[in-house]
């Protein structure tokens, strides 16, 4: 009998396995319960594939989407629907990062105690951080062109405006398939040639690595032939004449920045690009952005020069670029974006989530100063009434019919600290096409949210 006593411990081992499995399940139940319950397979809350409870509003409680057991009710206003659909999402899950998909757990009022048991059966309200009015303004400003406008508060991380075009009206039902990639969110998932806005990265590398940058000087003849080979001209729109570092950024001199890139070398440029978060994808609220991609050859001066001015094989994601702009504004520290307005007291105390130090304080200060100089010297402060704006334009050659227009930067205002990115595909000149869009949306945003 005593032998059996010992051998019976094997039953205890089985009991342990069962108990351990229960523990694993418990862990997952706590961690993933919300995601599980919000899955479209849950027929408790999905009727004919559509979620049946919950409301999505903008930051000012403007209703964007009402989920009912009779189906999805969107805003009455067409422009609102079209301009917010990439943030709100559609019922069929075509827009992967839409709130209805990403935050289904919160939308249905899931909590671990009650599950989806909802006595009112109306679900919960998710307040997005976006401003519907600014989204409408941005959509109208894009005026039918393909592009994106992304703006966030670089202090709190709240995304104030997120528009991607082409778009569609979710109330009309989602079109089966679209060549025009209406479901594609350029802001989160795009990766485009940055053009001259990348000079803000090269400039940061210069500030960090070239102590004698004040002595830098370049004679721009508008053609800027490098070496004797053909196809090695770093043309500029104008003949800039003699420019220093600061002036080179203000007039966006390709010749000067080509030379600076060669002086820095591929490794240094890569290091800075990685440091300011442009080569990685960004993750927030469970959403993952596209990652940029860059090639900085160490053995090919020509291609290195192109890479240093945002051409060549450079591709940047607009959202990560916006966050970099926020970092410059915020003394080098980047704040993680978010799309959900925090309702939790704890989150308020904890404050915004930092992504760490993108730049040193002094580097950020110098860049900021240069970006102001850009506006004063080049874009004209009058074009941005009421805004304390710091910016850089870009006109990216993509081989398309026209160049892509970029305008990135930030405003520095205690009440309205916004970092922004505007991209218009084949829009032409950044300063003349993208900058006015930024100006219009920022003004709308500021008017709507000042002293909120």
């Amino acid at each position, binding site marked *: *009998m005593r032998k059996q006593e010992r051998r*019976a411990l094997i039953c*205890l081992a089985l009991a342990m396995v069962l108990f351990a499995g*229960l523990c694993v399940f418990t862990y997952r139940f706590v961690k993933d319960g919300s995601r599980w319950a919000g899955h479209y397979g849950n027929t*408790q809350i999905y009727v004919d594939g559509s979620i049946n409870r919950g409301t999505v509003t903008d930051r000012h409680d403007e209703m964007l989407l009402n989920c009912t057991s009779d189906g999805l009710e969107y805003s009455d206003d067409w422009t609102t629907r079209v301009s917010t659909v990439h943030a709100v999402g559609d019922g069929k899950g075509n827009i992967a990062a839409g709130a209805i998909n990403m935050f289904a757990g919160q939308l249905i009022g899931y909590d671990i105690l009650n599950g989806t048991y909802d006595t009112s059966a109306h679900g919960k309200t998710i307040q997005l951080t976006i401003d519907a009015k600014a989204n409408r303004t941005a959509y109208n400003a894009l005026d039918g062109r393909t592009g994106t406008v992304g703006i966030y508060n670089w202090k709190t991380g709240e995304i104030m405006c997120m528009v991607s075009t082409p778009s569609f009206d979710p109330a009309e039902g989602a079109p089966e398939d679209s060549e025009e990639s209406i479901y594609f969110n350029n802001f989160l998932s795009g990766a485009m040639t940055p053009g001259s806005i990348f000079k803000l990265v090269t400039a940061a590398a210069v500030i960090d690595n070239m102590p004698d940058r004040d002595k830098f000087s370049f004679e721009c003849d508008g053609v800027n032939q490098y070496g004797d080979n053909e196809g090695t001209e770093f043309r500029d729109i104008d003949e800039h004449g003699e420019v220093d570092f600061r002036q080179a950024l203000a007039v966006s001199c390709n010749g000067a920045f080509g030379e600076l890139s060669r002086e820095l070398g591929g490794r240094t440029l890569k290091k800075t690009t990685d440091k300011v978060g442009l080569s990685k994808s960004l993750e927030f609220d469970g959403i993952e952005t596209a990652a940029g991609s860059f090639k900085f050859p160490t053995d090919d001066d020509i291609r290195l020069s192109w890479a240093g001015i945002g051409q060549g094989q450079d591709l940047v994601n607009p959202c990560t670029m916006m966050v970099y702009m926020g970092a410059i504004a915020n003394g080098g520290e980047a704040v993680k974006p978010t799309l959900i307005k925090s309702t939790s007291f704890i989150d308020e105390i904890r404050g915004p989530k930092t992504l760490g130090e993108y730049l040193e304080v002094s580097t950020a200060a110098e860049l900021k100063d240069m970006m102001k100089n850009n506006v004063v010297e080049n874009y004209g402060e009058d074009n941005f009434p009421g805004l304390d704006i710091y910016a850089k334009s870009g006109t990216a050659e993509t081989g398309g019919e026209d160049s892509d227009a970029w305008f990135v930067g930030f405003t520095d205002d205690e009440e309205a600290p916004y970092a922004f990115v505007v991209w218009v595909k084949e829009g032409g000149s950044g300063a003349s096409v993208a900058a006015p869009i930024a100006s219009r949306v920022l003004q709308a945003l500021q008017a709507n949210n000042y002293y909120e």
Partner: protein
Amino acid sequence: MTTVFRWLFVVLAAYILLIAIVSLLTSRATPEIWGYFMVEDGGNFPITHWENVIGRSKSTDLNIPLVTVSNNQAILSRYDAEHWVLKDIGSENGTFVNGQQLDANKRYMIGSGDEIVMGGVYSTVAPPSIEESKNNEVMRRMDKEPVAPWKILLAITAFQAMTVVQLLLSMGEEITVGVVASFMILTAVMWAYVSFFKARGRKGFEMEMIAFFMSTINLAVTTSFNPTDTVKELIALLIGVALMIFMCVYLRDLDRTRKLRPALLVLAIAALFVNLAFGRAEFGATNWIRIGSMQMQPSEIVKVAFIVLGAGTLEELYDRRNTIMYALFSLYCLGCLALMNDFGTALIFFTTYLVVSFLRSGDFSKMVLTGVGAAAMGLMALKFRPHIASRFAAWGHVWDAGIVDDAGYQQTRAMSMGAGGGLLGLGAGNGSLKDVVASNTDLVFGFVTEDWGYIIAVLLVLCIITLSLFAVMSIVAGRSTFYTICACGAATMFMVQTMLNVFGSIDLFPLTGVTFPFVSTGGTSMVASWAMLAYFKAADMRRNASLAVNREEVWYA
């Protein structure tokens, strides 16, 4: 109303099960003393089991630490109050009784005072004196008694009444008179059972309380899934309870039970054969047969026989023939189940076989060899059985695109809607998982989580774990290895079944489609679960606790 009920259900369930569980795990039995083994110059050893190994090895029950004594010298088994049976199991220097050497592996009746010589040492067996018996009796009386059943009984009754109200609230007119009557009959049977055996001096009812509670959840799940099945399920439950009582009474007599085994062996072989010949395929496995309008799963009933056929007295464990018979029978069962394509049940039988063989032989290497061989065979089976292979392929990836609505459909739905239940559940009858195939059987853990909440679902698993812990603990005071192997075998079966069922539905293991004991809907499964409970009852050696054990005589008024 449901909002309030959800809390009450959880509180009641926790109250019922925690009291029963704590009582089972804290009330320990002091071993009974059946006689004394007196060794010359070695002292007196109380004999606390019906079956004892005598030898030099430390793991023997009666230990004589002398080099002249073999590791396992002989087995001493109780015959009756006066007589014992002694059997030399191939000792080196032989065993002598009153000067005569015993033939190895032959049984000899001995009485108190007979002179036993092993390895040159004199010893005798003596009955316990009245004084010592009284002391032991006093000791046993001082043991913590099982908790009185009445409070739990009231709590379960309240739980059952509330369940009916909740089902009426959630399902309204779908709830037939039959459903309400079924719950009322369950309550009545529960009270009758406890009152009857309590009046006959039995004290331990925790295991039955646990089983009645789990059966209540079963009826609720069955009703929620399809109210017209409730009456059928209740009938199965009643048959199960009756079978359990019968088995308990039958198991009291060890010899009687042992004599029944050849008949059981034939029946089990026949049942599986009939299943193979006339079986019907359902969800991939051909494990159903139809008799008239009745359907049943013979393999569920064979489970019950499989346990008792694997058990053996200590003497039988040292008998090679007995072991080979058991191995052959197991192989036959596994072969049949493989042909039926019932992978899950085969896994249950196989694991139980491994554990029971280990309990019998203790030969770990043999067990490992068997395990490896079987695993290789299992892999081959995978190769030839595409539907099992696809389940293994989906395992761990059920949420992936392409799998989530295909091979992972059932698991993801069980997890998704289960999570929707939260900790408290949506209320019986309110769940949506019922629209998924086999949700009331294979996915019942998800079903319970959605309807009743995570807490109750987990408590149900803890019930199974508790029964198993109790089975292991009971060995200390066990009379015969026969009973302890039965209890441990039944515990293994319950646990493996629960593991496959629960882990399968939450993607910790491929979904194999086996039932959760007591909880899954299914008549045969319900009958088998109750019948298996008899094995646990037979191992309950707490004083006058179990109806499966003869009452102790009162030594003094």
